[in-house]
């Protein structure tokens, strides 16, 4: 894409979501994660490494903050003044929230990260020039930069290990930004197959790697515009609307008995991931 072409077509590259200039039809991929089911076991994270050819950077680079885990499990304990975490820790699987109005997209000088019609925040590796503006502007800190040429690193991917790589996912070279894609290779395969059969992808036909691995089924993923999808039903039951930065249920006088929320909603990034609060028993 030349610069003039880019400027001319800026509105196409950077159309406003989640407003109606481009309705999500027939797909809007979204997620719901139940933090009460999440045990923090890391199966999702390792599944992501296996599926998406994520490099294992090693101890020293990890210390420099160069780890590449697209899916990480954060853990919190912040009940100040308590001697013990006597209600357990709080775990939170965190990956790209596929924001509808993604702060990372607006700052990319070369439009290497942009929005797809099915509601993904996509990263075009061979357009990326490595300015890292996107990472700086991401409120969730889920973008990972290739400081090294990992595919040629003998410690990261010795010849034997290279045979494990998923041929459906490109490897990334030095100087390129990467992040969770909602397993776009799986989505594409499913979409192509469905299109060939003259239909849209059905509920349950495609799973992300993290969702598939999760031992407690804490993660649901699907097409938000499909009223039959579990993810649509969950968002609806929790009264979380994609295009709101303040949910109506939180404005009501009576406190809501629903536990669906989006992280840092007030920043108006309109994330595509809804979390369900962790529940703790009040009787003990």
């Amino acid at each position, binding site marked *: 894409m030349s610069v003039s072409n880019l400027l001319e077509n800026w509105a196409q590259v950077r159309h406003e979501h989640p407003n109606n200039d481009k309705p999500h039809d027939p797909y809007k991929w979204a997620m719901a994660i139940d933090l*009460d089911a999440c045990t923090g076991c890391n199966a999702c994270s*390792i599944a992501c490494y296996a599926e998406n050819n994520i490099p294992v950077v090693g101890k020293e680079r990890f*210390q420099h903050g160069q780890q590449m885990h697209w899916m990480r499990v954060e*853990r919190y304990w912040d009940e100040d003044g308590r001697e013990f975490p006597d209600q*357990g820790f709080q775990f939170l699987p965190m990956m790209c929230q596929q924001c509808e109005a993604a702060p990372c997209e607006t700052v990319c000088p070369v439009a290497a990260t942009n929005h797809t019609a099915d509601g993904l925040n996509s990263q075009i590796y061979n357009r990326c020039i490595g300015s890292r503006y996107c990472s700086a502007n991401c409120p969730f800190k889920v973008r990972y930069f290739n400081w090294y040429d990992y595919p040629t690193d003998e410690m990261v991917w010795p010849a034997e290990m290279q045979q494990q790589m998923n*041929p459906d996912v490109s490897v990334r070279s030095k100087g390129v930004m990467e992040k969770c894609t909602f397993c776009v290779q*799986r989505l594409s395969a499913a979409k192509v197959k469905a299109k060939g059969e003259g239909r849209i992808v059905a509920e349950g036909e495609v799973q992300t790697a993290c969702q598939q691995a999760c*031992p407690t089924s804490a993660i649901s993923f699907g097409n938000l515009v499909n009223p039959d999808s579990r993810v649509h039903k969950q968002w609806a039951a929790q009264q979380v609307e994609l295009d709101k930065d303040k949910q109506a249920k939180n404005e009501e006088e009576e406190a809501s008995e629903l536990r669906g929320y989006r*992280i840092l909603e007030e920043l108006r990034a309109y994330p595509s991931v809804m979390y369900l609060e962790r529940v703790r028993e009040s009787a003990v």
Partner: protein
Amino acid sequence: MIDSGSVKQMAGHPFDRRDFLKVLGWSGAAVALSGCGNTSVEDGRETVVSYVEANDYMVPGVGVYFNSTCAQCDAGCSINGRVREGRVLKLEGNPDSAINKGRLCGLGQAGVQHHYNPDRVREPLLRNGNKGEAISWEKAYALIAEKLAGVSGEEIAFLSGGVSGHLKVLLGNYLDSLGTKNHFVYEAIAPSVVRAANLKAFGVEMPRYRFDKAQVVLSFGADFLGSWVSPVHFSQQYAQFRKGVNGQRGVLIQVESKMTLTGANADRWLAVKPGTEGVLALGIINALGMATGEVAELVKGYDKARVSRETGVSTGQIDKIAALLKLRSPSLVLAGNAAEGYAHGSQNAAAINLLNQVLGNVGKTIEAPVSVPFPQMVPSKGNTVALKNMNDGLAAGKYKVVFNFAANPVFTAPGAFKFKDNFAKAGFKVAFAHYLDETALQADLVLPLDSALEDWGTQVPEYMTEGAQINIQQPLMERLHANTRGMGDILLGLIKQKKADEYKGFEDYYAYLRGAVLQNKGALGGGGVEDDTFWNDTLTQGIVKLAGTTTSLAAHASAAGLVLPAAAEADEHFPLHLIPGVTASLRDGRHTNQPWLQESPDPLTTIVWDSWVEIHPKKAAELGIVEGDIVQVTSKTGSVKAQVYLFPGIHPEAISIPVGRGHDAMGRYAKGYGVNPFQIMDAVFEAATGELAMHETRVKISKTGQRVLVVKDEGSAGALQMGRKIAGRVSTDQVDLSKEV
């Protein structure tokens, strides 16, 4: 997904498994399977089958899935391996398994890194001084025959990890042919004391636990979500338990001195003084006021004040727990590693089982287990008594020939055993190994094994769920290295040295396995089905489901013989308890060389690639220690140095070091990372069973003056959300779960 579609297509078209292997790319597969002749991936290159003629299930660019069984731990999860162009790429759960129902933990998924590990042993190696010299298999077999000649059964020892299925049968037959009874089945981390206590209380070693039926789970240190018995299965039941019935969510209370992954998910986590789990259990029975007769008599002395004083749990908390257990029934009470790891571990477990019985849980959330109707195939369960017995024999110089398989005792034996020195006293040491681990390095002959994704086998899980099952293990791809062999093939080769006539009908282990399965076709649910059809169906499914036999469950937990010792005296020289931390991904350290596991942050501390000493912030302040200080941890047996991590989820009188790291062998991803707390473990034994009491080691710590930056995933804010709602939390009285999808 296209890939999933192709699995379904395949399910309807059974095909010849060996044919599949042939077209994987290299025609050497059949020869390789036969277990004789050296084939490398380069051999027969000229006969590579062109894709133009490939079978209809081989479409370039499309993955096909084959069922097998995860070998990363003994839980027996069924896997679905994604294979493309002859290479296995990813392991997923098999949805048809009642154990893992399509799910797979991180440890299981890292199985591909076991297979593709660059540090696998590739040739039979014979010790020559300090080096291993590559030799041929023929020479290796001949050498074993030579060393066994004239050696009596008494002078042979075979150490192995837990084995089951046909491999167990074959191994048993081999040991019979050698005339030895010295089979030591050793697992460094196993619920052996709990098994013994269960056998006493319920008549079975491992009943079926129904988390999904329980309204309250009270766990004394059982890390069932992380590393205990069958974590993926339990995690699924846990999810159901949390959803509950009619919005009545299950409540988890975890009692332990060092927080486990399960503890981190508890509604209430209680830090008890190390070793007082049984006291708390009896205190709860007392507070319930439901016991009668001799049980009431037993718990009479365990009033709240005393129990609170001994355990450190407040009287108010004991009341709340008792009230909740009374209100919500059935419940489930579990005894785990932390309860059984003391010299009085059996007593702790007995007290906990008694609480189950008083609450009426037996028969409700504790059910009779099923087992396969073939007793010769049920798993032989490893324990630490076996290691001790073998170690005693080694120390006495009893053994002329020693075999080691699926265990790494030089790494996992407690330092006080001096196992490495004793092992050196054995005459001729043979290790069957995937990697040159600490034990293989001490061996005289190392025989390289096929990876779990290259080998044939059957596996019977100890813990089964709905009905019994025999799991099938089959190659997901051609051998990566031409000169490795399957354990079954090696055993068959060895047994033929002794009983050539009896086994001459079996060309290889595959033939043995196929023969054995087809011989029992009727009992395996294949009565009246063609042999080939049944065999192919079995391989396609990867699981043989059986009706199974149910052992009946008793409820004879009793107060008889239940005596808890007085609280342990503080040891002024070694004031702290050492708790060996068992993590979900590293377990006893046999998979530490899988880089995904090294770089997967510990869920609780978020530390990667290293060991740490967990210490309560209060204790650390007292000792003037801060995060990253390198401290020396000294026990009666030895000492290690490691970085400190301040961790609130530990009792101030204890410290914890995770096991699994600290290898000085096992290749580039394991060697030199962290320390091995097994090395400083004292030899203290559980009184009733003789098992190693892993929580009994006492230590002192001292600063070394060095400090490092702890390499961890946790950000600069530590565990704090700084007032923002990132990980949200709500209490049960503020939420209505019944409306949820």
